[in-house]
């Protein structure tokens, strides 16, 4: 049984990256935007693990990098959610369309 080729996995990760980007640009709810950013970061994780497994299996650089990404993403989400809660307290909404006091 032949294994899945690398290109298939890269296709999935690139698709995930652009789905995340699309979600970030079109969604107007801050929590959903945060989820889109998580999609982008997970696509990067898939990339790292796939490259490590298929191309450079003798070192574990890629796997370690993805571990760090998961950790940092958790920290980032924690700070972002704290900021969103504070935004909700001040604006009574987490819709980006309604938080636009400052515009050029």
């Amino acid at each position: 049984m032949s294994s899945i080729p690398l290109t298939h996995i890269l296709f999935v990760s690139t698709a995930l990256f652009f789905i995340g980007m699309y979600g970030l640009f079109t969604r107007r709810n801050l929590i959903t935007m945060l989820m889109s950013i998580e999609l982008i970061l997970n696509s990067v994780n898939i990339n790292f693990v796939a490259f490590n497994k298929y191309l450079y299996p003798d070192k574990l650089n890629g796997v370690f990098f993805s571990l760090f990404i998961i950790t940092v993403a958790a920290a980032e989400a924690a700070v972002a959610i704290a900021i969103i809660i504070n935004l909700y307290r001040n604006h009574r909404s987490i819709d980006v369309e309604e938080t636009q006091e400052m515009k050029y």
Partner: protein
Amino acid sequence: MLIDFIILMKQELIITVIIFILLLLKIGTDISNEKILNLANGLLLLNLAAGFVGNQQGMLFNEMFLTNPLIVLEKNILSLGTLIVSLQSADWLKKHDHVPEFYILLLCTLLGMFFMISAGNLLMFYIGLELSSIPLAAMANFDLGKRRSSEAAMKFIMSSAFASGLLLFGISLVYGATGTLTFSEMAGHITGGSLQVFAFVLLLSGFAFKISVVPFHLWTADVYEGAPVAVTSWLSVISKGSVLFAFVSVLYTVFKPMAATWYNMLFVLSVLTILIGNLFAIRQNNIKRFLAFSSIAQIGFILVGITGSSQLATASVVYFVLIYVFSNLAAFGVVALVSAVTGREQVSDYKGFYKTNPVLSWVLTIALFSLAGVPPTAGFFGKFFLLMSGAGKGNYVLITIAALNMIISFYYYLRIVKAIFMDANEQPIERLIIPAYAKLAMVICIVGIIVTGLAGYVYDYIHSLSFGF
């Protein structure tokens, strides 16, 4: 080994110790804000002084962490900027409930910047970048009850998370194309293939977000306006300066074989950045937004310098950031003082400022002259070296556009000077008492603006440490 570790990572270790001291202080007894401020400023001064003694070069942890005299100098510039920002924010923090937290977040970002500059590996670089940007979002939200502050923090964390997503995707592709994360090994594998160019574009856009180069600058003005003034000055000077240092070293070591490709990208980006930064700065009425767009234009000039890719280029970028620290922080110092006491931030509020506050007017004027690049001030020499380095490549279209834009920038900088000195105002800003710390910060800035330009020794020293190809 342990001795090496302590000596090479000295600056990071000192910052970590200061963070722990402040944390313990927070847990411990009730101390008045004034005492904490005195202690924090003293510790930052100590940190700055310690940066100048007993430096060595070398690498640690299998090339994860590098240090050399140029990196030490860059860290010292950032420490100096931190001290000035801390002195300026003393007056604002005095009335705040969370003084130790502010310093902890501030020093965490500084620690992240130090690791980012010293990084010899993309993993280390990424961790440093995140450590320097996540606490910054919390700092932008430091006026907890203000609507604008929370809006600014939201915009900042969203755009910086997206930027690090782009950067990471670029890093993952670079890893796929080269098989390594270490800068020195990576340079040998970069050939300029299409995958590598794509990865570089993603990396570049991640960087461009952080230093607000034009297609990615949209968060800048809003965040600057909404965040507390101390955080704004920190964002515009220290945060950008550190990313610029890291950008130059990544560009010149890792992507050296692709120089022909990125030269053209930087050419387009710098022209756009200078032009749009200048044109938008003309129409701003809020002085913080005005300074935001002027800082975007300054980043454009720095990109002109970076395109040079010679020893002169590195030297001119570091030199300009040093000058930029002094001149922008002097301007922000005055704006912070006025906004803290009167709450007025419009350009029109500064009409007739000279009648009531002659000293502050002169400080602001010298700072603006330095930002615009008027000869006796250091800003002129900074921009001169940047353009000279850009001209080294023989692309005179770029230099002409940059020089013409300097003239446009005179218009909007001098508009403020005109408002200060010439325009009449029925309700000028009242006479302000300058607190001792802010006065000290202004003196440091003004001396810096005048001395770094005229003392050729400073530039020669930076030039002797620089590298290029």
